[in-house]
């Protein structure tokens, strides 16, 4: 909690990548959250294409600290449409995961290709939120969100990393401006000067979500991006948690 703001980190992982120092130790993650003032982290496991094992791991991780973690489901179009939908039904209805994470760079299809449609249709029917990794990988250009979002108006779409690079960030902002169901998430190792200010100025403070990529990155420097940005405290409050609480209904 920071000055009465319930801080929600919209981008975090379950699963380890020890080679890069990413260790999904809940005690370590909660220590970093507490030291910065982060109340809740949204987590997903992107390392298992079927989703099944990874979603189980996410659910188990969240169950240990249900007041601090929220779980998102993951599936991949490397599997069949039927398998994706079945796993999403299990993850949402049985495991009680609350949203969907997708990672286009792991597959050969850009995020607006038909291979993804069964996921989008499922999210649209349920009114669920999807956060994509977006960036400079050809499958993950945020401009494709502008093709998808109008077709599924009851779903919400989040551009993870807000595209990361200047060109892709412009695409992400354009997608958000064209579609009320597109939002922008802030984590990025690039930490380019002026990005938070740009997102708030060009898309609106009500469309920007704080994220950190924990535990790949310690959430504190990513939190510092928002706190030290030259935006109003009201905008910071929206970005840090107000928007996430509203769109996730948590």
């Amino acid at each position: 909690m920071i000055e009465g703001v319930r801080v929600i980190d919209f981008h975090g992982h379950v699963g380890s990548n020890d080679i890069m120092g990413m260790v999904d130790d809940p005690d370590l993650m909660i220590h970093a959250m507490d030291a910065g003032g982060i109340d809740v982290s949204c987590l997903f496991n992107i390392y298992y294409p079927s989703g099944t094992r990874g979603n189980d791991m996410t659910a188990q991780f969240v169950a240990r600290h249900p007041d601090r973690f929220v779980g998102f489901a993951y599936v991949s179009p490397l599997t069949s449409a039927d398998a994706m939908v079945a796993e999403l039904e299990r993850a949402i209805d049985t495991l009680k995961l609350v949203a969907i994470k997708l990672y286009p760079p792991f597959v050969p299809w850009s995020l607006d290709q038909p291979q993804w449609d069964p996921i989008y249709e499922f999210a649209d029917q349920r009114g669920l939120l999807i956060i994509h990794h977006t960036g400079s990988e050809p499958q993950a250009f945020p401009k494709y969100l502008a093709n998808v979002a109008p077709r599924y108006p009851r779903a919400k779409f989040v551009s993870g990393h807000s595209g990361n690079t200047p060109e892709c960030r412009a695409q992400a902002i354009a997608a958000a401006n064209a579609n009320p169901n597109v939002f922008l998430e802030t984590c990025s190792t690039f930490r380019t000067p002026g990005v938070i200010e740009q997102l708030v100025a060009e898309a609106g403070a009500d469309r920007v979500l704080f994220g950190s990529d924990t535990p790949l990155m310690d959430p504190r420097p990513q939190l510092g991006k928002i706190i030290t940005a030259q935006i109003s405290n009201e905008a910071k409050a929206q970005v840090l948690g107000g928007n996430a609480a509203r769109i996730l209904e948590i």
Partner: protein
Amino acid sequence: MTSLSFKPRVPVFDANVKVGDAHDELSPCPDRAGLLAEMDTHNIQRAVIYHALADKTSPVDANRALKDWLGDEGRLYSQWAALPTRRSLEQLGELHAQGRVSSVRLAGLDIVKFPFRPWSYDPLLSWLSQEGIPLWLALPEMDAHELVSTLQAYPDLETVLVGAHYMHALWVQPLMKALPRAHLELSRFEPIGQLEDLLDEFGASRFVFGSWYWRLAMGPMLFYLHHVGLSDDDLALVCEGNLVRILGEQAND
């Protein structure tokens, strides 16, 4: 206790600021006044600066361009870029004769994959070691084995390792252990919990705050350092004191 506004609680001397345009990228900060204003925004009193042309183009021209950024207000400290070429060494020698060299930064190591070995760098490394001038090296441009084996041949040389990233999560602890005169600059060092572990193992004297503005935003890592449980004394070392010690008497003016 975190608040929506942040102000450092100790004086801050930034160890790593890039100025000027690169050949392929414009700086968001056009001039010295703009840089000082950015520093004021983040309550950073002083900074070591080098010119962006050093990264990929020419340390000699970078050093010439850097002179436009230096003033007499005592807030911006020149860091001269170097290559192991006669032209670069002559330029450094002239600057040193004028009493203007408090630190040097290796330039463009990864552009041509020039090995960092005593046979290739000895004139520069011997001179720096003899004159007591510290050397900044960008970790992402280095071969770790070359870094260790070469610097171990110059045991008196103080170094600052810049830009360690989560891609270097496996590198940092063994490097710090193998190179007792090396300091870690923290602008990109985000592996979760590792900074606290390194502080416990090596002590605060081995770390310096650097923002690497304008490549990175100036404020976030300073915020981070204020939220890793450092005592005020240790925080002051990381944010200012260690850098003052590394730079020597010119930084105390």
